[in-house]
């Protein structure tokens, strides 16, 4: 997405997905450190880190913030065996249709997560060990898929413009 054809949305999507991706790398390092520390404390000192599993669960949820970054780097899993044998024009049309459908389901995922999150906020549900509220993580997850929506929208616009296949 770099180069002369880059517009505002391209730059915005690239920047936001990169920032969230880098944030996710810190989460991965933190998960590894917390889990290792928990094992060492449990095995050596018989005093496990209280709530380590819960923190890792929430970090795992937050890793969804890095989905858009991977998607823009082409890491998303697709089956291209049939599509690649079609003519470039048909490929472009098919790609656009599939992107529109992808955008549709991602919007529904964001909607479902926000709706659920509001429900949990009203109920005031807390995690069992650390007593952390559950609902903010619904919104974090929704943000992750929200950025995916913006990234797909950008891909659709570019597909329409014929800038990329």
């Amino acid at each position, binding site marked *: 997405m770099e180069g002369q054809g880059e517009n505002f949305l391209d730059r915005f999507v690239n920047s936001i997905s990169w920032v969230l991706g880098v944030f996710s790398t810190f989460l991965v390092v933190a998960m590894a450190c917390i889990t290792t520390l928990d*094992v060492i404390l449990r095995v050596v000192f018989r005093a496990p880190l209280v709530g380590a599993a819960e923190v890792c669960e929430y970090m795992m949820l937050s890793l969804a913030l890095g989905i858009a970054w991977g998607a823009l780097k082409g890491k998303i899993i697709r089956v291209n065996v049939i599509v690649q044998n079609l003519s470039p024009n048909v490929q472009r049309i098919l790609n656009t249709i599939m992107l529109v459908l992808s955008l549709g389901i991602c919007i529904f995922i964001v*909607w479902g997560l926000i709706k659920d999150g509001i429900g949990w906020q009203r109920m005031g549900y807390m995690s069992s060990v650390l007593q952390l509220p559950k609902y903010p993580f619904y919104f974090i997850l929704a943000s992750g898929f929200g950025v995916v929506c913006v990234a797909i929208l950008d891909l659709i616009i570019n597909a329409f413009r014929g800038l990329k296949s």
Partner: protein
Amino acid sequence: MRPETVGIAGIVLMLVFMFGGMWVGLAMALVGFAGCVFLGGMDKALLMLGGTVYHTLSSYTLTVIPMFVLMSTFIARIGISSDLFAAAHKWLGHIRGGIAIATIFACAIFAAICGSSFAETLAIAKVALPEMRKRGYSEALSCGCVACGGTLGILIPPSLGFVAYAMLTEQSVGHLFMAGVLPGILLSALFIVCIMVISYIDPKAAPPGEKTPFREKILSLRLTGPALILILLVLGGIYVGIFTPTEAGAIGVCGAFFIALVSKRFTWQNFVESLWDTVQTTGSIIVLLVGAYVFSKFMNLSNLPNVMCDFIGGLAISKYMVFAVVVIIYLIIGMFMDILSAIVVTVPIIYPVMVSLGFDPIWFGVIVVLLMEAGLVTPPVGMNVFVLSSSTSTPMNTIFRGVWPFVAAIVLCIVILALFPQIALFLPSHM
């Protein structure tokens, strides 16, 4: 319309979207959600969607994925694979087909610390292929053994294939990991027999190299130290029960980091690139798992798995006949899809049928991963062959020509496991 008919229509639609080039996870999520809307209404479907996405990702067990991906990518970058190959080469290089056998040895040991077949294929190809080419090995045999040796990465634990299967079937990751050990050793042995037969039939395909003095052979064993320490740490810890597979991933990451520091192979570039790779790969797996869970909800709502179980149970045929059909279906699917997609797409439909017929779920997990291994190297979509071809500029036809004997070895391994399931179930039963 009957719910089962909606289920069948959903499967067809999902395949259309998937082969139309839609992201696999999103294709499954879209069809799963649309099916639930059709069968249960918008409000219920939306509630299911939000809840399923959250509960899929808020699992402590799922943290095993970023941990093992990080461990695999980091290990693949710090040169442990070249050490393993160098040691195996010194011991076996002088016999006919020795370097190819050494490659399989290196692959098998490397597989025990690396859960990704692509990372393994790339890491081993870099060191083994130039050596085999230098010694005049046939291109087909060299590439075939590297591509197929690389597939051991998903059978010998830690394996991402087993993690995905465990998540979808609610089986123990630890039991599945241990169930992969003996079949992995068996398959490595079959690959070695395969190389020996090829080099016996065509001696020019794999000429012997020079003999290494015994002292050098002994000294080369120290090269295997880091890998063996990591294997003992990760697999030993799981088997003895000191930590869970999820924790083993994190311990493995720290172990690999420590080894890289001690052996002075640590570079920031390697570390940062491994982290970036991990986040991007984890993101793609997250989407795939979310899609699979949403699709599973739809399948359960349509009652299709139960109807299929009743239908197949009512047929007057042996359960092994059904197993044979499932094997053929998986071999075909494996030719067109990558392993994780194939597992998440098929397991929600086929797993209940196999369990209802009395097959052991852990044993079936091993069979599924073995079948997917074959899929990784068979045309037209042999992902390992693509990886090898693009990284070594070898024509794909040459590689595909070389993999067939090894695919036969994989099929033979499946037959042996079907006859003697205890090979897979021995270690898990002693945990």
